[in-house]
């Protein structure tokens, strides 16, 4: 049933595809970090209409499945003339989906900044840009770094969904091996174990960073 020699023969292909998994995670996370901040700030706008629009976008993106959003980007957009490759559509979908989640994280960080800091910034006649960049954001982001780190792991575990839009990452590689040999067991199990090792190791790493962070 379980063949070790077959397992070892598939390992190089899957490890090769792991590069794509990690690359997609990092690019997607970078998009989500920036997008989340923009959404969080847009939601705080003094203009009621803008704030409402941003709230609506965040709620909508959070309430719909990543898979369907990916289909929309990859298969839906070409119908109106915008064609994206699997990698672009994939990281964009992943990034936008988690922007909505990260905006909530940023929001909690921003709301935790004491009122006095805003007032002091105003009293010192800082421009809005300087106030956000030099006073508010440094204090808002620091305490939420561990939460952001956790979302990095969550996003890493979501990347196999990108196989549905033909991106060859670990799960897709395993599926292709399975389709070729009719042996799905070894390849899929291997992918599962690799995910487990990587996400467990990174969660330990984040916990250690968190401890170090809190000490200073």
């Amino acid at each position, binding site marked *: *049933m379980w063949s070790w020699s077959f397992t070892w023969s598939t390992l190089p292909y899957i490890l090769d595809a792991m590069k794509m998994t990690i690359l997609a995670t990092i690019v997607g996370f970078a998009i989500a970090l920036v997008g989340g901040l923009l959404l969080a700030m847009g939601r705080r706008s003094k203009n009621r209409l803008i704030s409402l629009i941003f709230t609506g976008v965040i*709620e*909508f993106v*959070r*309430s*719909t*499945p*990543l*898979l*369907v*959003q990916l*289909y*929309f980007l990859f*298969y*839906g*957009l*070409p*119908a*109106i003339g915008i064609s994206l490759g699997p990698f672009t559509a994939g990281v964009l979908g992943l990034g936008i989906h988690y922007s909505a989640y990260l905006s909530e994280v940023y929001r909690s960080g921003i709301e935790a900044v004491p009122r006095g800091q805003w007032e002091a910034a105003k009293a010192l006649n800082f421009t809005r840009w300087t106030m956000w960049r030099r006073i508010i954001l440094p204090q808002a982001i620091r305490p939420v770094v561990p939460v952001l780190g956790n979302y990095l792991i969550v996003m890493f*575990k*979501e*990347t*196999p*969904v990108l*196989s*549905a839009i033909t991106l060859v990452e670990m*799960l897709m590689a*395993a*599926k292709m091996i*399975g389709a070729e040999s009719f*042996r*799905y*067991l070894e390849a*899929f*199990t291997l*992918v*599962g174990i690799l*995910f*487990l090792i990587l*996400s*467990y190791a990174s*969660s330990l790493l984040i916990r250690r960073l968190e401890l170090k962070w809190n000490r200073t």
Partner: protein
Amino acid sequence: MVSVDLLPLLYQGAVTTLKVTVLSMGVAFLLSFLAGFARLSRRKSIRLVSSVYVEVFRGTSLIVQLFWLFYALPLLGIELTALAAGVAALGLNYGAYGSEVVRSAILAVPKGQTEASIALNMSPMLRMRRVILPQAMVIMLPSFSNLAIELLKGTSLVSLITMADLTYQGMILRTFDASRTFEIFGLILLMYFVMAYPLTLMMRWLERRFSAGRV
């Protein structure tokens, strides 16, 4: 845009999506409590088994578990239908997340409550049922509602193991007329939102109701 002709098939898909959601929620809810209590057991072996379960299912992704149950398990001699594999994967995955919610909520109930029930000579069973759980449930509510929304969204993945849910119907409709793909998936996103948003509203309502009079 006239989308009316798409609706019958999409409606069928939505019914399947809701069916999978409800069944998986049942399994996940049960497993959450089972594994959550097991994590707090006095016996080390029980704690170990449940932490392995939780770590394995939280550490690998839902889609990998789904594919494993559907494509790999038959090679070990266990064949599951798409529905069984889907419900099992969703139930096991969200059960693992839910067990952490149960565990942390029970631990969050102040220790004085346990001590008071012991002082009142309540049996452990009665203590849990009448004192600890009612307070822990209030703490669990927001996290459970969040998980319910995540689970509903997670069901879209069963389309990849041949189940004819809402997402799957979209892929089918797309093959008839690819030029309408934008409209089809836009409509499907809207339908998922319509299904998920009541859960969000219900969560807020429950939170307000149960936190009334408590601070």
